[in-house]
C-alpha cells in the first residue's frame, strides 16, 4: 500500500538519502536497521513530510505523489492516514493522557467528544494505561509515556504507523512493556514501519528488514536472510555485534 521510489534527501550539501526504493503491503511490518547517521530516521520523517525530500515518488493508498511537486493536500492526505510514534514520546504536556489520545480524534477526524472519549479509553486500555486517564505526561514514567504515545497513534486507526526508535530513550526495564504493546499491534494486523536498535525484537516481529548504510539500502530481505545469512560485508560487520537469540525459529 506504500511504494517508495528513488527517494532522495539532501541537507545543505550532504546527501543523507541517496536512492531509497522499497514497498510495503497492508498488514506487513518492515524494520529499518543500520548504523547511526545512515539516514533511518530521515527516511521515516520523509514519508510523512516532517522532512521534505528532494526527489522521488511515493505511492500511498493508490495516490501517486511526486515529492518535488507535492501539494498541501497530498501531504495532508498522507498525514491523516498515518501516525507516528516518536523516540522522545512528544506527548502534549498540558493535556492529560486521555486528552492526548482524544486530540487527533476530535481535531483531525472531527469526531464528537463523547465518541472520541470512548475510543481513547478503549486504546488506552489496550496499552494498559486505563488507570491514568487524568494524569499529565510529567507524572508518567518513560515507558508509560511511550505506551500513551502508541495508544495515541493506534486510536487514529491509521493505514500505516511509523515508529521512530520507539524504545531508544527508555531504560532497559521499561523497554519490555513497550515492545509488548507493539507486539500486540502487530498481532492486530497494523501495517508498521519501525526503526529500531532492538535486534531481537526486530528479528521476531518483522516481515521484512531493510539494512540502511550511508543513505542506501545496502541489503534487504526477511529477518532470517539478513540476520542469519547476510550477503554484504558491511551488514555482517554491523550484525557481528549483535547476538540473536535464535529460539523459536523454523
Amino acid at each position, binding site marked *: 500500500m506504500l511504494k517508495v521510489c528513488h527517494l532522495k534527501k539532501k541537507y545543505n550539501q550532504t546527501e543523507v538519502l541517496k536512492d531509497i526504493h522499497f514497498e510495503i503491503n497492508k498488514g506487513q511490518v518492515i524494520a529499518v536497521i543500520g548504523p547511526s547517521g545512515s539516514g533511518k530516521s530521515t527516511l521515516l520523517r520523509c514519508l510523512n513530510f516532517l522532512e521534505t525530500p528532494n526527489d522521488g515518488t511515493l505511492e500511498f493508498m493508490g495516490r501517486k505523489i511526486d515529492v518535488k511537486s507535492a501539494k498541501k493536500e497530498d501531504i495532508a492526505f498522507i498525514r491523516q492516514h498515518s501516525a*507516528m510514534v516518536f523516540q522522545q514520546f*512528544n506527548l502534549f504536556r498540558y493535556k492529560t493522557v486521555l486528552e492526548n489520545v482524544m486530540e487527533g480524534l476530535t*481535531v483531525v477526524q472531527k469526531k464528537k467528544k463523547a465518541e472520541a472519549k470512548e475510543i481513547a479509553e478503549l486504546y488506552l486500555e489496550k496499552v494498559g494505561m486505563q488507570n491514568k486517564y487524568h494524569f*499529565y*505526561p510529567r507524572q508518567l514514567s518513560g515507558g508509560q509515556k511511550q505506551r500513551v504515545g502508541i495508544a495515541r497513534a493506534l486510536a487514529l486507526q491509521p493505514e500505516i504507523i511509523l515508529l521512530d526508535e520507539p524504545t531508544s530513550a527508555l531504560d532497559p526495564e521499561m523497554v519490555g512493556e513497550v515492545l509488548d504493546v507493539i507486539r500486540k499491534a502487530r498481532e492486530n494486523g497494523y501495517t508498521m514501519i519501525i526503526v529500531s536498535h532492538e535486534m531481537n525484537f526486530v528479528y521476531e516481529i518483522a516481515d521484512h528488514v531493510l539494512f540502511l548504510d550511508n543513505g542506501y539500502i545496502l541489503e534487504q530481505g526477511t529477518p532470517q536472510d539478513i540476520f542469519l545469512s547476510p550477503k554484504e560485508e558491511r551488514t555482517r560487520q554491523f550484525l557481528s555485534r549483535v547476538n540473536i537469540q535464535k529460539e523459536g525459529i523454523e
Partner: protein
Amino acid sequence: MKKRHRIFLVIGVIALLLSGCSTQKKNEVTKILVGTDGDTRPYTYYDENKQLTGYDIAVVKALDDLLPQYQFEFEVTEFSSIFAGIDSGRYQMGANNISKNEERERKYLYGDQYYLYNNAVIVTNKDRTDIHSLKDLAGKTTPVKPSGSFLQAFMEKYNEDHPDGQIAYFYSEQDNLKTYQDIMNGTVDFLLSEEIIIDTMMDEYNLDLQIIPLEHEETIQVMKPEGYFIFPKTSEGEKLKSDVDQAILTLIDNGTLSELSKEYLGRDYVANIQTTATEQTTNNGMANLFDLKLVFTQIPKILAYLPTTLLITVVSAAISFILGFVIAIVKHKKIPVLTQFFNFYVSFMRGTPILVQLYLTFYGIPILLQYINYYQGTAYSTNSIPPVLFVIIAFAFNEAAYSSESIRAGLEAVDKGEQEAALSMGMSPLQTFFRITLPEALVIALPALGNSLVGLIKGTSLAFTCAVVDITAAGKIMASRNYRYFEGYISVALIYWAMTIIISWLLKKLEKKLKADEQEVTDDVESMSLEKEI
C-alpha cells in the same frame, strides 16, 4: 632629634597653621544656597549663553555684593522643590518672585521687605470681546500647573467661593509657551498671568495676544502683588532674613533696584514698592517635620483617581498584547519587509525613554492634526481628543515592543517535538499553532509578560505629562496645596506597592493554573505502587 624627624615636625606645624587659617576664613563667610526654578521669565531663566539670569537672580547677586559675610549660590530645581528644599535644609533661601499666602507663611519665613510689585492680567485670544474681568471667566478653560503657585491657590479658592460661576480650569504641566499657542489657536480660553511676565514674553516671542489688566481689587484677589524672598524658620534663617531686608532697603535707596528693574523687566516697577513694610509674620512655631497620620488620611483622596490609572493600565496592556503578538508572529515567521519594519519599531520604542515618547505624542499629535487639517481641509481639533487617549496610545505602542520580544521568545521555546506530533497526526499548521504552540508559548512567556505589566502600572505615573491626572498627579496636586510633599508621595508609593502585590499574586495564580501538569500526586502515587505489586 634626627634630621628626618625635624623636617616632619616643621611640615606638621606649618600644616596646622595653614589649616587654622582656613577654618578662620570659613567662619567668616557663610555659604547660602538659593533655590530657584530657572524657568520663570523674566525673574529667573537661562539666556542664550545658557547662563542663569533674570531680575531675581540679579537682585540676589546685588545682595551678595552688599553682604560680604555671605556667599550666595544658586541651585535650579522645580518650583515646588524650592519649598521642599527649604524644609530639608538644603536651601537657605528661595528666590522666585514668591508671593505670600497663609499656608506658606505657616511654614516659611518671609522677608519683611518685598522687592517686586506686580499686577495680574488675563491673557486671551486677540479677537475675543467677552472677557473683561474675573467674573467673565466662568466656564472658560485654562491650564494650571500644580506647582503650589499663587495661581493654583487662587483657582481653587475662587471656585469654592463661586459655585455658580466656576472657572473651568484643568491641571497640566504644559509650559506657558504651549499655553500661548493654545490660546492663539482656540484650544484654551485664557491664562491668568502677571503683567511683568507677559510684557517680557510679548517682546521676546512676538506673541499675538490680548492682554486685559485687572483692577486693583481683582488683582489682589488673584495674587499678592509683592514678591518676596523666603527663608527657613531657624535662627540662621532669621539672621539671614534681617540682613537681606536691610540690604534690599539699601538697594532701593541707592537706585540699584530701579536700575535692575529697568534692565531685566523693561521698566522701573520699583516705584510701587513701599519701604514701610512691617507685616506681622504669624509664626506658628516649627511646622511638624513629618505627619505620619496624614500619609494614611490622604490615601482615600488619592484613590479617587485610581480608576484613571487602572484604565490606562488595562487598555494599554490589552492593546499592547495584541500588537506585540502580531509583531512576534511576523518576526517568528520571518515575513519579509514587515520583519525589518518591526525591528526598527522595536529598536526605537525600547531605545527611547517612555517620558520622551509621551512628550512626542502629546506635542506631536496636535501638530499632526494641524497638518492634516491644512492638507485635507478638515477641521479636526485636538480638543475633541481626550488626553487620556494620547497616553494610552503612547503606553500601548511602547509596551508592545517589549511584549513582542517576550512572546517571540515563548514561541521559539515551544518544544518542536510536540508540534511535530501534531503535524504527523494530520493537524494543519494553523491548527497546530492554535492548539499546541500558542498555549504553550503563552505559558512560557507569562513571567516576562507579567513583569512588563508590573512595569506598565508604574510607568503610568508619567501620565501627567499629557495633562492626565492619575494617582501620582493627584498626590502631587494635593501636596502642592498643603506643602506636604514627602507625606504625599509616600501615600502614592503605598498605593502602587499594594497594586503590584495584588497583580503579582494574581499572575502567580494564573501561572499555576496554566501549568496544569504541575500538580500534587498524592493518591495516585499509591495506586501506582499498588499496580506494581500486583
